[in-house]
């Protein structure tokens, strides 16, 4: 097994990977940008080295610098987490050149699966159903493109060939929107992935997003660890995930799992990956794409299988056999994940930046919080505004939902605006409780941030806290150096004037 592993990432996933590494007796090496100097992922590592600069392009995407640090500090292997360099074929190749193990699939697999058009062809060859669509050179001109779109039938979906996460995606309801949508998608794809290549496919109305966790080793073993339903999305960004999917019969689960494994075997897949499918109202499923990395929502799978996927990644990357066979794996109970974002649902989900003046994640049996921040952390403009993931387990879906709602109601985030109240609105929607999920759920049910009337108790708390000097700001107490700190209540003249 490796002795020293560098985590080429930040935030909650860097913290979570460090936990497994350290519990396996492996030293963890972190890297950090200037903006992340006080970040949690630095504090939990055994060693940490700076990547000067603030933007991703200057820091976490600079694989030349990361590999140089790894070589300088005797690192055996690099875990890329998700995002950043995790699906970068060049990085995986550069690691191999430096004789450092990249914890993930081979560069070839990353390249092929990173190109959605090639990925689709490979899956078609393995007999996996795919969504009808068109791909080719978009410079054929708008008239030719309109013809292709008409063949597929509106609504049509424009997608970036590289990358994922909703960037470079546009739904086109009618022909007149086609040109502007392709242009916008290309611009976004270019900005996000440095590759403006896009393609079109049939837009399936009210599909469910159901993905299968797959895992392969270098001995030819490939298994799946069941599905995750990730239909609750906002602008193609997943926000609530669960397993089992309320939509899958045991037969459909077996069929889809077998299809995922068959395709993964056909392409010689190793390490952790995810095969994403759309499932329509009639239970037909269509291959979407493969993510060649650990997925944000992997804890859902960990909670229903009781296996640590990061640990399995390390074993497989070190040349070992998968620590589980398909027959070992059981889907026990029900797991739910909510992604906690610093964003303001009442202002169009604009990211909210600032200092986490109060940050108290919930805790209790069968509650897991994978957090990238702690009280006093800064949320900056430079990176993704996800603060944490709240994952719960229950014996069944109802119990899991009740536990999640309980936990969200006790999750204190102040200083930045969070999506916690929005998540609770979704979770308590009758259609969500009934399990009738699809990717347009939030739009169709017009779910927005609730506007709560201010209860008397909040006014009483505000009045009495001011009167008693209870209220104070963390930043005032913490970050004033050299001079005596004065609580904000004392300086509120109006407050004390009465």
């Amino acid at each position, binding site marked *: 097994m490796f002795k020293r592993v560098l985590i080429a990432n930040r935030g909650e996933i860097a913290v979570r990977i460090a936990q497994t590494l350290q519990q396996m007796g492996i030293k963890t090496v972190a890297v950090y940008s200037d903006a992340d100097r006080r970040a949690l992922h630095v504090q939990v590592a055994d060693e940490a080295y700076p990547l000067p600069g603030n933007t991703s392009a200057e820091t976490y995407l600079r694989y030349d610098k990361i590999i140089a640090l790894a070589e300088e500090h005797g690192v055996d292997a690099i875990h890329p987490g998700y995002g950043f360099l995790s699906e970068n074929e060049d990085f995986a190749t550069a690691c191999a050149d430096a004789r450092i193990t990249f914890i993930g699939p081979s560069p070839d697999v990353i390249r092929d699966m990173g190109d959605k058009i090639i990925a689709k062809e490979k899956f078609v060859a393995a007999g996996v159903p795919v969504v009808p669509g068109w791909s080719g050179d978009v410079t054929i001109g708008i008239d030719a493109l309109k013809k292709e779109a008409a063949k597929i039938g509106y609504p049509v979906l424009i997608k970036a060939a590289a990358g994922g996460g909703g*960037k470079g995606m546009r739904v086109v309801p009618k022909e007149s929107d086609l040109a502007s949508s392709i242009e*916008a998608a290309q*611009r*976004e794809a270019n*900005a*996000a992935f440095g590759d403006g290549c896009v393609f079109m496919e049939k837009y399936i109305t009210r599909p469910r997003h159901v993905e299968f966790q797959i895992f392969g080793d270098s001995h030819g073993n490939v298994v799946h660890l069941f599905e995750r339903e990730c239909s609750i999305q906002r*602008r193609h960004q997943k926000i609530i995930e669960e397993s089992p999917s309320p939509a899958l019969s045991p037969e459909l689960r077996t069929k889809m799992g077998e299809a995922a494994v068959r395709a993964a075997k056909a392409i010689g897949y190793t390490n952790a990956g995810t095969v994403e499918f759309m499932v329509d109202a009639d239970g037909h499923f269509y291959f979407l794409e493969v993510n060649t990395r650990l997925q944000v929502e992997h804890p859902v799978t960990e909670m229903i299988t009781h296996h640590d996927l990061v640990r399995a990644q390390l074993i497989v990357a070190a040349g070992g056999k998968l620590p589980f066979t398909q027959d070992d794996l059981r889907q026990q109970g029900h797991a739910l994940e909510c992604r906690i974002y610093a964003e303001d649902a009442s202002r*169009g989900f*604009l*990211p909210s*930046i600032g200092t986490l*003046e*109060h940050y*108290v994640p919930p805790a209790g049996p069968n509650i897991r919080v994978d957090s990238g921040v702690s009280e006093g952390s800064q949320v900056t*403009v430079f*990176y*993704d*505004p996800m603060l944490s993931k709240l994952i719960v387990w229950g014996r069944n879906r109802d119990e899991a939902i009740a536990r999640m709602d309980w936990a*969200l*109601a*006790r*999750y*204190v985030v*102040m*200083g930045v*605006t969070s999506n*916690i*109240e929005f998540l*609770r609105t979704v979770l308590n929607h009758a259609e969500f409780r009934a399990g009738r999920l699809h990717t347009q759920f939030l739009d169709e049910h017009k779910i927005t941030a609730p506007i*709560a009337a*201010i*209860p*008397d*108790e*909040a*006014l*009483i*708390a*505000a*009045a*009495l*806290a*001011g*009167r*008693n000097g*209870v*209220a*104070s*700001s*963390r930043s005032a*107490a913490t970050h004033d150096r050299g001079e005596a700190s004065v*609580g*904000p*209540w004392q300086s*509120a*003249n*109006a*407050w004390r*004037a*009465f």
Partner: protein
Amino acid sequence: MMKLHFKPHGDGEPIEVAIQKTDTKDHDCYQITLADRQAHAEIESTGPGAGWLRVQGRVLPFRILKKDGMLSVWLAGKTHKLELIDRTARRSTGSTAAAKQSHLQAPMPGTVLKINATPGAAFEAHAPLVVMESMKMEMTLSAPHNGRVKDVRCKPGQLVEMGAVLVTFAEDGHGGAA
């Protein structure tokens, strides 16, 4: 007796909260009058900006934060925003923003990608004026109402602060050519 006046953030009428200490012992107990409602409440501090209220047996942990002149109160899973109104103060509260907008501001820090506005050009409500990128997401800033561009104060590729004025609007009846 002490009276405080709060205004809910955004819309809403000011609310008067009158508090009267009822107990001189260790515990902080109060008689509260809130419009026509009365309640007996206890408060206890459990940390900086943290405590609990006890009203009619119900225990309500809260967190409170004063930031940018605004009070945020977290209570039972919800965060409420309040302004404290200083009835004795000379200066105005500064919260009376102009009813009609005179400009388009950056809602958060980010990079300007594209500008669909030229000085003097007319625009309709909801017309996309500026495309920005922030936190790796693209967003379109649309016109709040019909109007005419007075001045463009940003250029593509520019990194702008939150609140930066990107485009100013001509006042009614004034402005450049049609």
